[in-house]
Structures are given as structure tokens and as C-alpha cells.
């Protein structure tokens, strides 16, 4: 490649990036989610997950799984069917770009020790650093709404829940007691 051509290519790449930032499909699509998931995905409702700042590929995979009916949901399956791959990518990029803001929530001190132990044993291998990490495209559990995490883990354990969650989660959660789930959830609520 000649130098001039290389420069032109760089310019084109830069321009395309600039164009896509402006002709903003992601925010147009992503803003429609805010009615349920909060402004820019920073949920204010304790049973709706905060999706602001989640790893892009996590959001994309979750949306695709909802769309294909692999991931269990009440309403997300119906909604995800409305979008093609390109739109789901734009939505995922939009939310990944936002800042993760931990939920301001209370937590129950008395079960934190139990929660931490369970976390070390069961969860830390993937959800590293006390659940704060986003490595391996994991969603952070630390600072996520306790109400949402409780529902998520409960539906993972529920054999009657229509379609499955990621296999790993199902097998890890299925023998947790209600008390275990509560303790784990409180532990994550206490981490920021």
C-alpha cells in the first residue's frame, strides 16, 4: 500500500466512525429501552437490570438469545424479535458506551459472610473480583439491583421456567436454597 493510499484509508475509516457516531442508530434504538431500563440503561427500578455499561457482547448475546427463545423472559423475547442483527449490535454498542452506575440500595449486613463464602465457592471463577469484573463478557453483579439478581437466580433454579438460562448458570444455581440466593444477592448489593 502506498503511503497516500494508507492515509486515505485512515481518513475513510475515521470518517466512517465519525459518520456512524452522528447518524446515531444506536441511541435512536437504545432510547426506546429507557422506558423500562431507565435513562441510558441506568435502571431506577429494583427488578429491572442496570444495562448501562455492560459488555457489548454480553448485551448482544442476551438479546439474540431472547430473540431465539433460548433465554427465558417474560417480555424480552417478544421485544427482541423486533430487531435484526445490525440493530441489536447498534443497541448493544449504545448501552456498552454508557457508564455503569451501581444501584443505590440497602443491604442486609447479617448475611454478608454467608454470601461472600458462597460467592467464592460458586461464582468467583467467572464473576471475578467479588462480582465487579466484566472480564469474559460477564455482567457485573456487584452493584446490580438485588431484586433483579434474585429473580434471575430464582428462574435459573426453576425447572418449570420455560426456556433455559445459560447452561452454566442453571447448573450452578439449581441446588441453592432461597437463603443462599438471598445471601449472595445481599453480598453483591454490598459490593460497589
Amino acid at each position, binding site marked *: 500500500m502506498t503511503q497516500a493510499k494508507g492515509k486515505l484509508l485512515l481518513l475513510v475509516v475515521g470518517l466512517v466512525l465519525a459518520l456512524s457516531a452522528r447518524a446515531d442508530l444506536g441511541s*435512536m434504538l437504545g432510547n426506546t429501552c429507557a422506558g423500562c431500563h431507565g435513562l441510558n440503561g441506568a435502571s431506577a*427500578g429494583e427488578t*429491572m437490570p442496570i444495562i448501562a455499561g455492560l459488555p457489548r457482547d454480553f448485551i448482544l448475546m442476551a438479546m439474540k438469545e431472547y430473540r431465539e427463545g433460548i433465554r427465558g423472559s417474560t417480555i424480552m423475547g*417478544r421485544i427482541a*424479535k423486533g*430487531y435484526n442483527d445490525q440493530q441489536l449490535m447498534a443497541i448493544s454498542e449504545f448501552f456498552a458506551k454508557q457508564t455503569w452506575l451501581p444501584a443505590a440500595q440497602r443491604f442486609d449486613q447479617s448475611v454478608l459472610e454467608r454470601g461472600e463464602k458462597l460467592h467464592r465457592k460458586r461464582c468467583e471463577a467467572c464473576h471475578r473480583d467479588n462480582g465487579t469484573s466484566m472480564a469474559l463478557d460477564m455482567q457485573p453483579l456487584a452493584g446490580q439491583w438485588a431484586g433483579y439478581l434474585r429473580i434471575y437466580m430464582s428462574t435459573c433454579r426453576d425447572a418449570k421456567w420455560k426456556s433455559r438460562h445459560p447452561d452454566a448458570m442453571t447448573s450452578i444455581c439449581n441446588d441453592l436454597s432461597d437463603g443462599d440466593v438471598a445471601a449472595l444477592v445481599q453480598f453483591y448489593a454490598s459490593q460497589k
Partner: protein
Amino acid sequence: MMTFTNRRDFLKALSAASLVAWGIAPRFANAAAKARVVVIGGGYGGAIAAKYLKLAEPGMEVILIEKNKQYVSCPFSNEVIGGHAGMDLLTFGYDNLARRGIKLVFDTVEAIDPEARIVRIKSGTKFNYDYCIVSPGVDFMWNEIEGYEEAASQIMPHAWKAGPQTELLAKQIRDIRDGGVVVISAPADPFRCPPGPYERACEIAGYFKKYKPRSKVIILDAKETFSKKALFEQGWKQHYEGYITWVSGQKGGEVTRVDPKTMTVYTDSGKIQADVVNVIPSQGAGQIAVQAGLAKKGDWCPVNFATFESKIHKNIHVLGDAVDSPMPKSGYSANSHAKVAVAAILAALRNEPLVPPALTNTCYSLIAPDHGISVAHIFELVNGRLVTVKGAGGTSPLDATPEFRRLEAVYAHSWYRNITTEMFG
């Protein structure tokens, strides 16, 4: 990803607008920072529009003109009528919006001059604008049902705008004798909140089941069917057998006359003497939209769905219930309209291309405290018309498990918290 096949295409793409991004062309963006947008109505449409404009363009002058110092939400107002919540759950102030730099004016808009681009409020003050956003909600068609004029709503509340009307109906339900009859008169489509009357019936029946077990709810309907009908009927059977009767229009459900003095409701097939009468009158675009010529009385405002700009007056964007649209008249729709209108106004001011509009609606109804149902819609613009994306959206399944129903009720509450925080937070 966009690629350029030849140099000419590349140069074309390198137009003035793209040069802005490189900082080597006049910054059209300043036009947005210098613009003045007047938003009329601080409800589900207007509050979001004002907030998103200010977030996107902090320098812009955004003026929100609203009649009332506090907004009282219709969503979740049926919960108050059923005794599950107080008015505080419904009531919001505008302080946070003011703190964000939006100028709040509490007054009634009396006129819009679309030629001179001036809005005039009751106190006489005038505001000129570059863009005007109109989200006034609905106006009621008094006297379309004989005897149901505005004064009658003090005796037979509509409770279809939340506030004192909600409190009045809630009190009437509380005060009813055991064995009392409540009539809900539901209008023909289209009207604000299509599942609203049927959810209300659930809330009232739930209250009766607990406290006044001999009382009943009769829904007299102008229509043959209604939103989420199969799910509602399933829920009625499951929770409220014997408490709720629905009479379709063809079966004589259409209310033609009411007499508040004798608490009598008339239909073509007879009359009912009731203890409480909740007349939901038919509706049209909010009065100011009609006055400004954006719609005929009793009708809705035609807009271009790519921008929500009025088809009648330039530079006026109409949102929410007032719009003539295939989307259900819901708070979620109004919220969705607002974001498209904001994007269109910003694109125009910044001289940027329009992004195809994304419009959705999600609506939860509570059948019982642990039994929620929902409907979702994803719309796309095809040849200027809004159509639902095939295969997407739809209602909760009829064969859902109790856990699924319980979760939908739980999510309804979080939905409400999120959408109202998005507006007023």
C-alpha cells in the same frame, strides 16, 4: 459498515456535514445551542422531550409550559382506585427538570401562532420559538353521551385525567354499600389507554372481593372487543368470578344517556340504576392542539412519523395521545414519540441526516397484585406509515405459569419507577 467504491462517492460523503466532525467547516451545531424550543405540556410526552433536548444540547433554551405545578400520573392511578396506593405514588414535581436548566412556566397556553412562531400563555406573556413541541394529552367530548357534560363528572367521575377525579372515584368505591353496583362506561376506539377500563374493573373487583363481597362491576362498552381481551377474561374468571360483567356494544353495551340526579345509565337495550358510575367519555386531541389548528375538534393531529412534525404546521411537533397514530395511546408511546421528535429537531438544527425512527410501546396491566399481563409493540416506518414489525411484540401468553404472571406484576412496578424517573428524575 459503509465503504466507498470510488473517489467520487468518498468526496460526496465528505460533504459540509461530515466536515463539521473534523472541525474544518462552520459548526452548524451552534444553531442547536442557540435555538429555543417551547414544549407545551409536561406529561409523558412533553417532560421527556424537554429533558432529552436539554441533555443533548445543554446550551439550548428549552421552555416547558405546563398548567399544573405538579403532574399526576394516569399510569398506576387504577391502583389508587383499588386501594393499593396513595396519590403520592402518582404525583411528581418539576424541580429536577428546572435544576437541569429547563425553564418551567406554570400557566396555560392559550394560543400558538404558527406563522409568527409565537406561543401565548394566559398571563399574556409570549414566547417565540424555533421549534414548538405540543403534548397536551386528550380533551373530552362532553355531551356526546347525553347528560354527560363537564359538571356531571363531579358526580359520575371519568377519572381519565388523574388528580381530583381519581380521588373522587376512589372515595366513591370506598363508600359504596355492600351489594352496590358500579358501572364503567368504556368508549369506542381510539382513546387514551386502551386496556385502562378493564384494568380498572379488576382493581375495583379486587377491592370488592376483600371488603364488599356482594358488590359488582358492570362494564358497558361501545366496542365488540378490547385490548388484551382474552387475558383479561381469563383473569376475571380466575380472580373475580361473579364480580365483573362485560357487555359489548352489540349486546347493548353502548351508553347513550346518563342521568346523574337519579344515577341512571341508559343504553339502547335498557337502563341500569347504579351506585357509582365511571363514564369514560370519548376523546380527541387536547384543546390547545385544536385551537392551534393541528387537529379538528374530536379528532387527532396528523404528523409525519419520521419526525412527529405536524402535517399542518411546520416547526410544530406533536406528541403523545394527541397524535393520529396506529400506536396505542399510552405513556410509553408518548415517551417514544418524544425521542423521535427530539432526534429530528436536533438533526435539523445540526444539519445532520435523519435517522430512521424507532418507536416502541410496552404496556402492563395489573389483574391482581401478583398477576400482571403485558403487551409490547415494535413499530417501523414503511412508506410513511407506521406498522408493527412482523413476528415481534404481542401479549403475554395465555398459558403462562403463575410465576410468569407474578413476575409481570413485579416488572410493572419497576417499569413505572423507571419511566417516571426518566421523566422527572
